[in-house]
């Protein structure tokens, strides 16, 4: 369920690092908690982001929830598919429905994040 090559935040984002690029999304647990997602608000390319700071929001029928950046860097690209099809976040949160790609400025921050097994025990404990 939770890919081994991702790292996870306590706020239920994931990041996959390849070279100096980090791809960011929300976890399957997050989409389940939110329910039917109807809006996604994302930053524009070029915007600097900081680990643990808000970069946007995800809104469901029931509630709105902030997205926090797992790592620091600069936004390179946002997922263009989500503007018209935010429900993809319910269907494939770890794949097709990634949110943004950032160019990492402090890769060492990865150490602050959880592994897949740590995240799974974290959400297990939260229940």
């Amino acid at each position: 369920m939770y890919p081994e090559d991702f790292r996870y935040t306590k706020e239920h984002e994931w990041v996959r690092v390849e070279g100096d690029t980090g791809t960011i999304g929300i976890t399957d647990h997050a989409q389940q908690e939110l329910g039917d997602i109807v809006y996604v608000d994302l930053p524009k390319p070029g915007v600097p982001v900081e680990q643990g700071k808000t970069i946007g929001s995800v809104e469901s029928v029931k509630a709105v929830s902030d997205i926090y950046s797992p790592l620091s860097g600069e936004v390179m690209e946002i997922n263009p598919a989500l503007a018209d099809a935010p429900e993809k976040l319910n269907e494939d949160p770890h794949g097709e429905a990634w949110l943004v790609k950032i160019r990492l400025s402090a890769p060492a921050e990865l150490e602050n994040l959880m592994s897949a097994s740590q995240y799974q025990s974290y959400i297990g404990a939260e229940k």
Partner: protein
Amino acid sequence: MAAAASLRATPLHSVHCALRAKLVDFGGWEMPLQYSGIVEEHQAVRTAVGLFDVSHMGEIELRGPEAGKLADFVSTNHAQKLKSEQVQYSALLYTHGGFVDDILVHKVAEDHYFLCVNASNQEKDFEHIRQLNRFDARVEFTSERYAQLAIQGPHALAVLQKLTPTNLAAMRYYWFTDSEVAGAPARIARTGYTGEDGFEIYIPPAEAERIWNEVFEAGVEYGIRPCGLGARNTLRLEAAMALYGHEIDASISPWEAGLDWIVKLEKGEFTGRDALLRQKQVGVKRKLVGFEMRERGIARDGYEVYVDGVPAGWVTSGSPAPTLHKNIGLCYLSSDHAQIGRVIQIMVRSQPVEAVTVETPFYKRAR
């Protein structure tokens, strides 16, 4: 969730768990928020049929020779005008004219009125009515005697008809009858909180699980879905029905909430009447109006409303409307701004987002 132990549960709690519902604390009750998803459940009710556990709702019964007089003294609508087996939407008010609760009054007989009240208000309502009772009537708190299911949607009648000898097609909207469902005694009312045709049935708690399962099986061929409070909320909001704690509470009067039609001043004395008369003379400062978002953004409960940059009210309920594919809401606006077509700004997370006031209900079913 550690708090779960202190929450109250309905007789169908294990059914919800088996269906893997997402459960939430709703006014002290652990209730299903959703099963498959709010949008899917919402659409099932609009296009097929949905089944809701609403056993958390409270029941209070008035019995005795002056039960009707008591009903009229504590409620705003004209209870004694009801015929037996008729239902009426009404309100309990404080003497200052604010809402204690909104209720459904069922006239069972001249000496017996059956009230369906909001879950989180039931003890308060019971005390309120008891204290006002100076009639030859008894006030009974009977919530423990009933589980309640709502079967709602265009196929609700076909589904329920398979399980009852009562000719449901002959029942009119806002009428009820005491009959049987799946062989168990049931009070069947053609009422609902979704804007669709449908029924609410009051059944013995010990039979609730069996009846739920039988209704469900009877509904499979019609595409029945279990529906949670999330869909119940989006459905009632599209139909612009009030929810206690949002559109109405102790600080709001029926005039402000647009519920003039459930206030019968001419029926004579009732609790809150003097305050309502005074308010009617002076006029109200604010009114409930519907709005649609014109720009991207969803209004949520409690968001501030501005007109021309000046604070003018607050959002009572806001949500995407699954049937309408719009973002809608209800808000209180100062009376001078409360006309249809008024451009307003909703503060969505510190950003003003444009909306416009519109006619309600937002959704009306084709008849």
